[in-house]
């Protein structure tokens, strides 16, 4: 069997993170995420899953250990990374179109190219008709789609998502999950996703990392071998239910009694 050697896109080697007051957030974490993976971090609060995303994007430095993203330091790799936060983090004084173009604007992409790219992304997430609206006129789900469009506008190779759909109702969340997978099939970015929802993790991921808390450490790594494309009907399939149950059990083990 010939297999191409794939360099990891994100690599943590012995990464420890402490709070300024000395409390241990992550304890000697080793982690390798390969190009094309959709990795979901799931675990109880205090397991440091959001901290992992902040470390990958260089928003916070590790206390010990090394992190490489695309073979670079996190800060140098930022051009290849987009971040989607739990709230949509839109700028309320900008229209939808101007919000989607923000990343390109900050990176100095010129007006015409920016306009083209923005327009095509708005079409892609189905928001062309509200391009000139302001964020406060949109529903929670629409705001999150604007946030996704903005993240994808800069053509990231790595997409970091910190519970992006936690504030939405279940229907909107399911719809956006399906849309996210459709976009991934077209654009081939690697994803690191944080969630509290086991069903969401199973639906989206190629690999699920269950973290334990105090201090944050890897409790279990579970591959998700469900085939793509994954459609809404998958949620009713028996293998989906079995995997969800298995991960829920594993998650309970990770929480100290």
């Amino acid at each position, binding site marked *: 069997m010939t297999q191409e050697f794939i360099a990891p896109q994100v690599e943590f080697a012995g990464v420890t993170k402490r709070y300024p007051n000395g409390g241990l957030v992550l304890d000697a974490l080793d982690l390798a995420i390969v190009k094309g993976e959709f990795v979901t971090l799931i675990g109880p609060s205090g397991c440091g899953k959001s901290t992992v995303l*902040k470390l990958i*994007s260089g*928003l916070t430095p590790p206390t010990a250990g090394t992190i490489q993203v695309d073979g670079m330091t996190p800060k140098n790799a*930022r*051009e290849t*990374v*987009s*971040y989607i*936060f*739990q*709230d949509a*983090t839109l*700028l*309320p*004084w*900008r229209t939808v179109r101007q919000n989607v173009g*923000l*990343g390109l*604007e*900050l*990176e100095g992409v010129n007006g015409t190219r920016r306009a083209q790219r923005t327009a095509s992304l708005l079409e892609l997430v189905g928001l062309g008709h509200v391009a000139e609206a*302001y*964020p*406060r006129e949109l529903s929670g789900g629409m705001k999150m789609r604007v946030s996704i469009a903005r993240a994808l506008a*800069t053509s990231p190779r790595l997409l970091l998502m910190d519970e992006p759909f936690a504030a939405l109702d279940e229907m909107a969340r399911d719809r956006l999950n399906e849309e996210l997978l459709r976009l991934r099939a077209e654009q081939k970015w690697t994803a690191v996703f944080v969630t509290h929802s086991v069903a969401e993790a199973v639906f989206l991921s190629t690999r699920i990392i269950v973290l334990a808390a105090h201090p944050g450490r890897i409790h279990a790594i579970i591959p998700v071998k469900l085939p793509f494309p994954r459609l809404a009907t998958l949620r009713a399939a028996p293998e989906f239910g079995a995997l969800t149950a298995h991960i829920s059990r594993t998650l309970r083990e990770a929480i100290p009694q």
Partner: protein
Amino acid sequence: MKARLLPLANALAVFLAMLVLWQLVLWIFRVPSYMLPSPWAVARAVVARFPSLVSSLAITAGEAGGGLLASIVAGVLIALAFGQFRWVRRMLYPYTILLQTVPIVAIAPLILMWVGAGAISVTVIAFIISLAPVIANTTQGLISVEENLVHLFLVYNASPAQLLFKLRLPHAVPSLFVGIRIASGISVIGAITGELYAGSSRVGEGGLGYAILYASSQLQTDYLFALVLAATILGFSFFFIVMFLEWYFLHRWHESARAPEAE
């Protein structure tokens, strides 16, 4: 349309009732006109001395407006320095509170001594009294940006200038308007107070404060009332202009500037 006119009609009815009450007080208690002139006498004073009333109003409006504009420009620049450099803010912010608490009547004679009598002195006083609310509110707006928005900009490798002009400054605009709204009211008070001390470099000419002092010394109570009315209208106009600008710049995106919903 009927529903819109109703509050206006109510306000007008209250106004007329007040006039009637005013006149009744005069008749019943036989108040001498130098203590309380009749509404009719005030109206006559307005008409008879309209040119000097308007000229006093214009002088005070210019001083208060000039002081207010200067305080907006200086206040925003100072707030930008406060927002950008924490050490500057730590070192100097307490003094803006000092600026807010210093009684303007106490420093007006000093300004007069340093700058000399006349409009410039009064403008400086209006400027000083308007400055603190602009600085305080704008600084608050600049530094109260949500952490995730700052993180978003950092992940896009935003420069410090981009963070300031594309994130912090637009975020601070609603707070800036709160500051301007407060400052607009007190700039008029500052100008009139200033004029009480430094009203005019020439006898017989001056703003509302100077004219109020003069009218009261001459027991021209009817004209004094007209001047008080003019001062009130001036303060209200400033407030209204600022409210309009606030609505104009913010109504598309900011909650506070939306038109009130029909009840």
